[in-house]
């Protein structure tokens, strides 16, 4: 088919070459990396055979950073420099994590800073940098195990992550030197791991309760297509909250509420609280031992039914999103064929009991709830890198929260509703409200509420150069585009003059591109000529790819879709790129690629449109011949 041929040149030049790809589950509590080898997806263990990497980083003086188990072991002794649960802070501004911060032992730098940074022995660190350390460790693990460089990864994020949280996760990957092919929603990844294993068809709810995030997604599985119908959740709710409730109960029991300001002791209480929760999965009761700051010890016992009462508020809080997702999918509980349980916190017995009661449906708990997300991500990575035939499987995901812009009166006008299937493009026209208005300020928001103050502010930008007109006559078309990663870009265009402003939404309180670049330069592992050499190599590969794709396309149907002028212009431009490519300037190569792309865009679009027409016609012929 014509369409596949467009695809060919972009795939590896040697069809037998296996490119290394991995799926990464960057979790609140633990992180994992998995890959597909000989058609089987499996999690890659560390040198000691452990598949989990605790998402804990300890920053020590002079960059002597500990990651994973060694850091976890020091959490109680060195609470201020040992950072855990960075995922709960990533992509959030200082004010957003106010309540969270009250529970955390860390010292944050400037209260007014856009990106909250924790003060450590090795300087201030943002959640993005902490996550980058974890990703770097996983990258190293995978590259050692696979004896080669990773060509691309799929990183999972909670389905309920907003644009800022997704963008921040992508920035962390960039700092770690990873090529992110896709940000994949965790419940969707879990469905892939299950669906491909069992070849199931039907409608499934994926209940994903992790350490710090909760997602519920409803998916329809049909002949390898995973179609997300709706998703809902809470990006700050999880097992951590259960631990905290148990910890508060412990402090109460031993009458030591005043010790709740002692960081080291508080860490210890959190640790024993989690251990007690885990012990009560298999046992009916457990004994909790504590060493108080004065050196004395305390022993209390906790049974399962008491714990169930303590943590009930957390579990009950997950049921509201469960209802909302059903409503958004236009389904009833009885339409659901089964529930897939994902995330370490679904090991808690009362979570399973309450979910089973709520849906009155079978629970699937077959695959290790800690590993299932990484395995699904590895399968998707294997497909995206080109190691298996496309068309095997397709994921159609949705955007979790509505996107809109601020209008008069501090209200939000929604442009893309939540649960729209991505990629999605929507535009809306707005008019000027003052005579002679020459600029319009555009404030992009995400959330379900009607007031600007209740939604997440993503970006602000200005469209200038509107010709002065009477109020209401200036018309500005604002277009939102959400890509397959769930990331937004916005453009605004004035109708009469065609003045256009375009922004990739970078949350105003996230890291700027310049900051990320600076961090890359600062890091010891990325010496500056290293970056330059890498960029040059990347641009050359991209140039080769662009040239060979175009040559191939022209050979196939240049006659159909190009006139002589267009053809010679393209050939000339290609030749120019071929020469520039041999020189050592990455920026110049990039510019020449862009020029070639711009020139060949109409041709590429005509070819794609011809494929669509083919797909339509092919179907009509089939219908008639039946």
């Amino acid at each position, binding site marked *: 088919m014509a369409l596949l041929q467009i695809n060919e040149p972009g795939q590896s030049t040697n069809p037998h070459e296996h490119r290394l790809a991995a799926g990464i589950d960057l979790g609140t509590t633990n992180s994992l990396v998995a890959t597909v080898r000989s058609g089987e997806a499996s999690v890659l263990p560390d040198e000691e055979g452990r598949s989990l990497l605790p998402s804990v980083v300890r920053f020590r003086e002079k960059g002597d950073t500990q990651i994973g188990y060694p850091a976890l072991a020091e959490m109680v002794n060195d609470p201020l420099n040992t950072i855990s649960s960075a995922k709960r802070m990533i992509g959030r501004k200082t004010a957003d994590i106010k309540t969270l911060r009250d529970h955390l032992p860390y010292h944050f730098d400037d209260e007014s800073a856009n990106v909250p940074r924790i003060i450590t022995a090795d300087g201030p660190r943002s959640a993005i940098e902490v996550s980058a350390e974890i990703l770097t460790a996983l990258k190293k693990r995978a590259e050692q195990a696979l004896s080669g460089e990773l060509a691309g990864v799929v990183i999972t994020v909670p389905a309920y992550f907003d644009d800022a949280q997704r963008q921040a996760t992508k920035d962390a990957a960039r700092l770690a030197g990873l090529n992110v092919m896709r940000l994949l929603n965790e419940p969707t990844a879990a469905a892939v791991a299950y669906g491909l294993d069992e070849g199931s068809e039907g409608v499934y709810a994926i209940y994903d309760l992790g350490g710090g995030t909760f997602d519920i997604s409803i998916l329809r599985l049909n002949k390898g297509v995973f179609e997300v119908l709706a998703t809902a959740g809470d990006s700050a709710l999880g097992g951590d909250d259960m631990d905290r409730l148990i910890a508060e109960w412990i402090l109460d029991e031993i009458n030591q509420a005043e010790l709740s300001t002692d960081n080291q002791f508080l860490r210890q209480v959190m640790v024993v609280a989690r251990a007690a929760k885990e012990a009560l999965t298999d046992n009916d009761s457990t004994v909790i031992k504590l060493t108080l700051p004065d050196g004395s010890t305390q022993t209390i016992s906790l049974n399962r039914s008491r714990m169930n009462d303590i943590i009930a508020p957390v579990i009950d809080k997950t*049921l*509201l999103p469960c209802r909302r997702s059903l409503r958004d999918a236009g389904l009833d509980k009885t339409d659901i064929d089964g529930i897939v349980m994902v995330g370490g916190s679904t090991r808690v017995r009362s979570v399973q009991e309450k979910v089973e009661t709520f849906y009155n449906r079978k629970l699937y708990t077959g695959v290790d709830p800690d590993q299932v997300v990484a395995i699904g991500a590895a399968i998707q990575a294997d497909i995206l890198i*080109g190691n298996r035939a496309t*068309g095997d499987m397709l994921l159609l995901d949705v955007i979790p929260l509505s996107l809109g812009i601020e209008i008069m009166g501090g209200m939000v006008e929604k442009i893309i509703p939540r649960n729209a299937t991505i990629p999605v493009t929507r535009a809306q026209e707005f008019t000027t409200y003052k005579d002679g208005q020459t600029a319009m300020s555009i404030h992009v928001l995400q959330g379900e509420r009607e007031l600007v103050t209740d939604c997440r502010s993503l970006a602000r930008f200005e469209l200038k150069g509107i010709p002065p007109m009477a109020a209401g006559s200036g018309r500005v078309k604002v277009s939102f585009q959400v890509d*397959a990663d769930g990331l937004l870009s916005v453009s605004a265009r004035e109708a009469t003059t065609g003045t256009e402003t375009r922004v990739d939404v970078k949350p105003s309180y996230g890291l700027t591109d310049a900051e990320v670049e600076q961090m890359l330069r600062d890091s010891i592992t990325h010496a500056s000529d290293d970056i330059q050499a890498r960029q040059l190599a990347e641009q050359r590969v991209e140039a080769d790819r662009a040239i060979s794709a175009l040559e191939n396309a022209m050979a196939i149907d240049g006659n159909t879709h190009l006139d002589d002028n267009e053809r010679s212009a393209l050939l000339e431009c290609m030749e120019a790129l071929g020469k520039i490519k041999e020189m050592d300037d990455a920026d110049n190569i990039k510019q020449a690629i862009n020029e070639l792309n711009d020139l060949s865009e109409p041709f590429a679009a005509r070819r794609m449109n011809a494929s669509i027409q083919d*797909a*339509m016609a092919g179907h009509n012929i089939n219908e008639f011949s039946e």
Partner: protein
Amino acid sequence: MQIPFENNYFDLFSIEKSYSLDRHQLRDRFRELQRQFHPDNFASATEQDRRISAQYAAMINEAFTTLNDPVQRGRYMLSLNGINTDEEHDTRMDPEFLMQQIELREELDAARSSSLDALNQLSDKVESDFAGRMALVGEILDGTDDNELEKARHLVRELQFLSRMRNEIEEAEESFF
């Protein structure tokens, strides 16, 4: 760049142009097209092919969403007949219908503070109003009498009101859990 595609959404899915369409067939065709045009199929292609495929995939999503929803489908079919149902340009509504809406809203407020049962009864009423109007819209849009189109326009506007009411009832129901 605007992608060159001039067919209507029914053609895109190769289904008969009909208000009372077969939603299973629509979904099947939607999946078939996305299997071919979704950007994942172009993950290792050039950046340009990826960008263009994303534009087509977005259009296929938009087309599916439009035809799958009874209100949007009605508005779309009217627009194919040159009739604009844009609320900004047309605020005229049947006074009797508006009165009914005000009554429904009062009932919703009362039900909100009384019981889930009351909400369910209200929901049944709205659903039956909705289904009745959908049937009428279908008769007109799938019929041959173009003089009836104006009536269909009113009905589609009313469907939109009812659809909003439906959402509000469902939201109110959540507060009982």
